[in-house]
């Protein structure tokens, strides 16, 4: 992921330099400020890069402050779009309201983590979240060293661990989902930001257990064996669930899958270049999301999301206690775009009065 980010950055830098001199007259110009989650960053950055072919005079800057840091700036009205790897929290939404910032919430992709073992491993049929925690929690450091300690009946073979490096979003995500606290993990494992190293490690070690982005599993299916995960909650699929495009997108592969969002400042959304950018984002997301290693939403979901943006439906559907788990994005968006007359803003009046939109 890191390399992709770097390449994107390099492209970005080059494009900025090369675009400095030419002013085309297709009408789109201005600046779009984006900040927020590092997990969503690769998607948004890829879109921003492609968007330069459409609107070369629009300056799109994408920052990485983390989801929380991004929302802080967003609530102060400093950014036009906030990348988020979780829905906006109640307190963040309240802060926005306080400052008079209205927002449009759009899901853009799913992110899934694959837990894998070596293909020669014939005893691991599935893992529960509690077992994952037992293996990876800080207290396990130097203590949990053999498979037999994980589940009775498993062989007394050493367990060799391969996982994300501490600087990656995958690490934050895995530790939060499994341990319940971000950055809480044992340290005695092969840690690398480069997922290829992890694939190589697990594929060459019959006692290995590793985790990384689902995209990397799909590229290396023959060298790895996927481990289904049981979260002990029958509401989102009973028993162990294997990650796949389907189980990630329908919310049954929990807790190692989650939707990714962008939040758009409703006032900024009236600007011509913003309309073009968001439209471009949703149109190109299915392809770009896959390219940068995430799972795209259902094709329909992007259509509904575009409608939602057109209509200017504001607010969050994940308000009081609505969980992201086990919800179909399509259903959710359909509901919102259909029965949301109350919150539809009158975009035409704002457009007629440019002063208010600045």
């Amino acid at each position, binding site marked *: 992921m890191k390399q992709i980010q770097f390449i994107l950055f390099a492209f970005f830098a080059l494009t900025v330099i090369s675009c400095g001199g030419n002013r085309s007259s297709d009408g789109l110009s201005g600046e779009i400020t984006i900040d927020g989650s590092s997990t969503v960053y690769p998607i948004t950055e890829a879109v921003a890069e492609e968007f330069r072919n459409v609107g070369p005079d629009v300056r799109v800057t994408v920052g990485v402050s983390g989801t929380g840091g991004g929302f802080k700036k967003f609530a102060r009205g400093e950014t036009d779009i906030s990348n988020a790897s979780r829905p906006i929290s109640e307190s963040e939404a309240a802060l926005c309201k306080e400052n008079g910032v209205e927002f449009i919430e759009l899901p853009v992709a799913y992110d899934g983590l694959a837990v894998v073992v070596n293909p020669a491993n014939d005893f691991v049929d599935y893992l529960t979240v509690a077992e994952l925690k037992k293996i990876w929690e800080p207290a396990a450091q130097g203590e949990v060293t053999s498979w037999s300690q994980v589940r009775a009946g498993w062989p007394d*073979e050493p367990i060799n*661990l391969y996982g994300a490096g*501490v*600087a990656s979003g995958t690490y934050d995500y895995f530790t939060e989902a499994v341990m319940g606290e971000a950055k809480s993990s044992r340290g005695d494992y*092969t*840690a690398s930001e480069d997922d290829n190293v992890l694939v190589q*490690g697990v594929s060459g*070690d019959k*006692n*290995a257990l590793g985790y990384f982005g689902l995209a990397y599993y799909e590229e290396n299916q023959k060298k790895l064996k996927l481990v289904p995960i049981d979260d002990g909650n029958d509401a989102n699929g009973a028993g162990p669930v294997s990650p796949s495009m389907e189980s990630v997108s329908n919310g049954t592969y929990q807790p190692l899958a989650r939707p990714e969002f962008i939040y758009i400042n409703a006032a900024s959304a009236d600007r011509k270049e913003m309309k073009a950018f968001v439209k471009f984002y949703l149109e190109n997301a299915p392809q770009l999301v896959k390219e940068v290693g995430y799972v795209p939403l259902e094709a329909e979901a992007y259509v509904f999301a575009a409608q939602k943006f057109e209509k200017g439906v504001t607010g969050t559907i994940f308000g009081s206690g609505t969980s992201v788990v086990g919800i179909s994005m399509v259903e959710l968006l359909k509901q919102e775009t259909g029965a949301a007359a109350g919150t539809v803003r009158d975009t035409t009046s704002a457009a007629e009065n440019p002063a208010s939109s600045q």
Partner: protein
Amino acid sequence: MRIREKIIEGLLFLCSAITVLTTFGILFVLLSESIKFFSEVSIIDFLTDKEWTPLFADKQFGIMSLVSGTLLTTFIAILVALPLGLTIAVYLNEYADRRFTEVVKPILEILASIPTVVYGFFALLFVTPMLQQAFPSMSGFNALSAGLVMGVMILPYVSSLSEDALRAVPKSLREAAYGMGSTKFQTAFRVMIPAASSGIIVSVILAISRAIGETMIVAIAAGQEPKLTLNPLESVETITTYIVQVSMGDVPRDSLEYRTIFAAGITLFVFTFALNNISVWVRKKYQQKYE
């Protein structure tokens, strides 16, 4: 004329000054960052703790986990390079035809010019799978395969320098040995090698020093898991690999995590500095014996 001489002299001085100043510059940076590191982490913990996890929630700073990785891979490399290199040197100097030596020696030295990244992938993708046939429980990253390949890489250091040392032994010694009725084998191993021992020791020390500082092979093939172990079948992390890993990650500058690489760097420096000094000392002390 005098002015030209002065200018040339000045230029020559400048060239040597640049190398010396660079050394001091590196040393200064290493020391100043390490001092900051050791003001936060006790040097006793640094040397005695059994775990090295500075990037994680439960921070441990036991450099020995990294040192053991470095020493283990280096030891395996020397185990390959010393007997093999010495045998090659003896063969080329005592048994082989002179013309044969002239052809083979440069070819051997090609081994040293293969990019180390190539060696690294050779170890990971060729040697490791082969070793796994013999040791099925061996980890995909392991000290053994990295050490073996590193041994091949430093082989020319040992064979070439030892051959030079053997060649420098006065002819009279060999002739005396034959005159006493020694066989070729006895002459080579009982007379020539002891006579050339200072040069051979220096060659081995230089090879060790090269192996300790080697980065690419171990970073690719030996793994990235700091572990206090002497089992060559397990994955280990060397000091150099750790430095690479941290410098390529997102560790913020001026943090304790960032300074760990300087502490690791100075540990590495202490090793190679000591080894180089020992080699200079050996050379000085024993060299003139036969001249």
